[in-house]
């Protein structure tokens, strides 16, 4: 009856930190005191339960021989085959190609984009004209707002063998056109560039904000002491950006086995088998297993492998960061 009453600490002073009470009566008291806050979290709790936790046991698909017509419960009644799905992936070497591509692309994307984002943020800081800075920031952020489908159109209009502008320019200067879509060797470069193109604007804003947080007096003092522009960047700005860098890196390390499906699917093309050796990543493989081959079990096996290693990587990197730089750790 007096639930609402005690939730309203009208007579009681609010303690600075409510300590958690133990035992059953304590639990009831906690629930009462936090009732409204719990209700406010309820939509999110239910949402993640249904769309994230309920599908988790479905990963059991990886260990059975599943057919689509069996429905959901078929996951658990299909014949158990142990690690057969994994063995098949290892036997044809597919899993190594997928891992290699996914991890290497991510490592290259991470390093190149962070370096370029920090560089652009430092450059923006050098730009004295407010107008110029605002306009260039706005323009550089624009690619972030475009869907991968449209980026795919962009890539096509640049790279198309007969009509693409790059080949037109090459031919106009007397060269031989390049058939990008038949040559896997170009793609690591193309994809890295596209990734930079889409991501520099956003990332440089994050780093620029961190630079803005640096006290100008430190910079002035350094300048008066005779540090030139490079030395100020090297010895003051970069060390101060380190925390932001570590945090962003940490957020990314867990995803090192997660590829950007939209990017690879739209830019490389849905069914370009010629390029697969250098462009097939875990996501595109799972997608094909699901939509083209209906091999749900093998797709799940790859997903399980991906989730498990990603999870371990986050734990490991967090432990490492906790040791080196306790403030930057995630949890």
């Amino acid at each position, binding site marked *: 009856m007096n639930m609402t009453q005690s939730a309203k600490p009208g007579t009681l002073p609010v303690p600075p930190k409510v300590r958690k009470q133990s035992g059953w009566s304590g639990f009831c008291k906690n629930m009462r005191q936090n009732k409204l806050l719990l209700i406010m979290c309820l939509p999110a709790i239910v949402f993640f339960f249904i769309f994230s936790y309920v599908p988790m046991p479905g990963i059991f698909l990886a260990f059975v021989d599943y057919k689509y017509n069996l429905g959901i419960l078929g996951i658990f009644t299909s014949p158990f085959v142990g690690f057969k799905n994994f063995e098949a992936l290892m036997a044809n070497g597919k899993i190594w190609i997928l891992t290699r591509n996914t991890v290497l692309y991510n490592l290259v994307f991470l390093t190149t984009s962070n370096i370029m984002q920090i560089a652009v943020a430092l*450059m923006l800081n050098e730009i004295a004209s407010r107008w110029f800075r605002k306009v260039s920031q706005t323009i550089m952020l624009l690619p972030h707002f475009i869907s991968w*489908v449209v980026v795919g159109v962009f890539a096509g209009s640049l790279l198309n063998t007969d009509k693409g502008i790059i080949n037109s320019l090459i031919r106009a200067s007397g060269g031989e056109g390049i058939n990008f879509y038949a040559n896997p060797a170009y793609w690591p470069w193309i994809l890295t560039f596209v990734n930079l193109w889409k991501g520099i604007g956003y990332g440089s804003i994050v780093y620029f904000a961190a630079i803005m947080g640096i006290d100008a007096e430190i910079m*002035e003092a350094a300048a008066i002491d005779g540090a030139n*522009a490079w030395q100020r960047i090297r010895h003051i700005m970069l060390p101060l950006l380190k925390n932001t860098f570590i945090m962003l890196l940490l957020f990314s390390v867990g995803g090192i086995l997660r590829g950007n499906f939209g990017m690879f699917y739209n830019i490389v093309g849905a069914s370009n088998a010629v390029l697969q050796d250098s462009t097939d990543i875990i996501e595109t493989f799972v997608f094909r297993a699901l939509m083209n081959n209906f091999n749900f079990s093998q797709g799940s096996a790859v997903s399980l492998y991906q989730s498990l290693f990603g999870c371990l990587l986050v734990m490991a990197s967090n432990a490492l960061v906790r040791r080196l730089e306790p403030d*930057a750790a995630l949890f």
Partner: protein
Amino acid sequence: MANASVKAPAPPHMRARVHGIDDRSSIVLKTISYIFVSVFSILCLVPFWLLVVASFTAESEIIVSGYAFWPDTISGRAYEILFLSPKKIIGSYVVTIILTAVGTFVGLICTAMTGYALQRPDFVYRNRISLYIYFTTLFSGGVVPFYLLIVVGFGWKDNYLSILVPTILSSWNIILMKNFTRSIPHSITESALIDGANDFVIFLKIILPMSAPSLATVGLFIALGYWNEWYNAMLFLTQKTTYKPLQLFLYEIINKAAALRDSAAQANVPPQDLPGESLKMATAVVATGPIVLVYPFIQRYFIKGITIGAVKG
């Protein structure tokens, strides 16, 4: 997430630029900066330019000499065909706008509520619920069980709910919102509690009005996600759905010859006369146009929002 000791951005006069000092290294650095930033900005715009130009180029010219920075023969034929029987594209627009509006509204309210509750230091379950939400970013069942859940479990194949519901909340947005809201001093909540307001009233009447910049940012993230969404649409919408969301509509025009033939038939144009290439480009322009037009007005909030979110640690 435990590291968000929020530091206010330094006031303008103490920011980290030292303009008074113009030694040689500074001048070199400045020159490089201006040149590089200009070149990169132009690179960001070039594809947009190419796209618009190609959509206005006569089909015969694209076939013969490819895309160009400037067309010899300007033609509005592609747009003419696109809007000759505008039912499909207008339907796509309506679907996308409704999905974006509903998804953003509901998603933003739930995200803000959760974000506020999770940063309250006196909320006993905040760490457990945070972990519960964060864990979903670490481990997932993968696409296959998710697909089965939506298609077999809910029976949402060819149902717009399959696009609206699964992306309405994201753990990143909740974490972001939580960090944003933390910059509002807890003492405000405390004094309102002493005055007898309950948690929900505090959230609605005090916290929400104070969170305008962060709501704008997270709202933009969510809206952008819906506008650019095509993945779930591709998984769950088949030919039975007449009006596809805009990005999927575009995807099919580009990648499926059938979709192109279909629009030719609708416009009563013989397939061989269809300006295929410029039509693809025109569809891309129409699908992207609203974003590029709205963009200059919203990017301010966006940059501000990322900046608030970024100044941590």
